[in-house]
């Protein structure tokens, strides 16, 4: 869990001095301990999977299908998919449509600005393996730019396909967190000095 990166508190002086120790280290250990708790892990998975806010990034023509998907007929807000616009608050990037070189740079910067638990849905044939613009001099595949979690085929894919991709992403988050839980309970974290007793 990303905790507030507070500056290290150094001891004040001998008389009336108190040693708070390295607050970062203490906070990190506490975070690891919480996350290795089974109930907390279930809660975190539920929280992550039901609040997927995509960054407002319409790369190309599949954007119309993403707009139709967030429209009233295939309302994706039911699944907690509220397009909120600001990369800082979102945890999902939906690459909808062809990635030209210029747009690939922008997608990369948006992805890097986002806080840590983040996922990528690549939508449309053009980002899977080229689509009808496969040998154009200006297009790039999604896997060159970002680590993609879910691919949605189709040109443009139907809004129902986007909805299923969000549900598939929920399963993937569940697996990721379950793997994290198994690793942390097995004491794999002890290497970083987290005493499990």
């Amino acid at each position: 869990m990303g905790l507030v990166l507070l500056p290290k508190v150094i001891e004040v002086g001998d008389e009336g001095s108190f040693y708070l120790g390295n607050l970062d280290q203490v906070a990190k250990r506490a975070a690891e301990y919480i996350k290795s708790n089974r109930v907390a892990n279930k809660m975190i998975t539920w929280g992550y999977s039901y609040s997927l806010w995509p960054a407002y990034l319409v790369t190309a023509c599949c954007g119309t299908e993403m707009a139709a998907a967030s429209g009233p007929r295939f309302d994706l807000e039911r699944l907690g998919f509220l397009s909120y616009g600001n990369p800082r608050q979102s945890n999902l990037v939906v690459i909808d449509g062809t990635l030209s070189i210029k747009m690939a740079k922008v997608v990369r910067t948006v992805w890097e600005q986002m806080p840590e638990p983040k996922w990528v849905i690549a939508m449309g044939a053009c980002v899977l393996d080229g689509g009808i613009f496969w040998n154009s001099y200006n297009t790039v595949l999604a896997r060159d730019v970002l680590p993609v979690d879910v691919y949605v085929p189709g040109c443009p894919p139907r809004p129902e396909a986007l909805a299923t991709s969000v549900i598939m992403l929920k399963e993937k988050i569940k697996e990721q967190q379950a793997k994290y839980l198994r690793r942390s309970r097995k004491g794999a974290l002890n290497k970083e000095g987290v005493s499990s007793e």
Partner: protein
Amino acid sequence: MTQEIKTIPFTYEALSQLKMSEGVLELQIGPAHAGSGHMRIVAWVEGDTVVKVDPDIGFVHRGVEKLSEDRIYIKAIPMVERPSLVDTVNANLGYVMALERLLGIEPPPRAQYIRVITAEISRIMSHLYGIAIYGIFMGSSTVFMWAMADREPFIDLLQELTGARITYSHIIPGGVRWDLPKDFAENAEIALKYLENRTKDYEKVWINNPVVVARSMGVGKLSAEGAIRLGVVGPNLRASGVKYDIRKEEPYAAYEEFDFEVPTFKEGDSYSRLLQRVEEIKQSIHIIRQALKRLPDGKIIYEDYYKRMSPLMKKIYDEKGRVKFTLMLTSLSPPKGEAVSRVEGGRGEMFYYLVSDGGKAPYRFRVVTPSFRNLPFFTHVMPGHKLADIPVIYGRIDYFPPRPIDDGLFEPDPRYLVAPS
């Protein structure tokens, strides 16, 4: 009260040598921004007033013209539809008309009528999408959802006809691929009646909404003379008082048989562009009704192509009314020459220029989408407005990727403009 903004004739040189006072802030309203589509609007803002705007586009440039030289003629149809994905039928119609002018063939009347019907439905969908984007830029997600919802019956209509949601590739050289299903007329009538009383709701909630009027009246004003000089297209041009519609000026695909009038407004600001699109939706409904009433029967493919079809293709055509992609279509090689075709799309005039050297692939293929022709809005209209007006002007000119749209000729405040010495 309409904002009185003087219009001073202005050339691009003076704008580019604008002397920046130190209080100017450069804002990158980039592609990942709720108020910009697929482009980066670089705006120099002083306080709340926009001093200079430089659009940085090309984020969705995929080189359709270069790729079409590498592929046979038929394969250019899906590529032409992608740049304006909300108005695919008109894009498809434009390219196929240029190809037919090269080949020297003429589709039968029933195919022309079906083309007009699908083109008008696609225009309605394009206008509704424009209103939806305008709503979200103005901060009201209600209109976005309403317009997106009103688009769905028309998407179902064409999905029933062609099977695809948006990318139909329905029009081929010589005619169309599918005949209208039996109950198409009734479903179309239901959808049109639904849209008519929906426009009443729009009037109540959105068009006469005092906030919308206050925010878009007098914003992005464009004089008729300015519109002509900047070469803007489509509803933005007619909203400034220039009565020009290619369906009337250079009638194509059976448009001269329908009587519809071209609505125009005089003020040329964002509000009149909104009203212009609502009027055009009403005209399209009128055209579709006439076309459905007077639909002639007969073949939907060019007579000569029908004869050269193989017996199996003919059997499919007679039973299901469906034209399969015959070998003849895929091995088209029109004679040497060039052709130009102009189509009035939902967003404006789509220009196609096709040069062939007798081979299987086009020698040179030039597409100018309406968005590209409206680019001067940004450089010439936006300076002098408030920062909050950028989405209002930009949303209302119905921008769609890959190239942005703009309107009007309006000059920055003289205070910010130091005449180039």
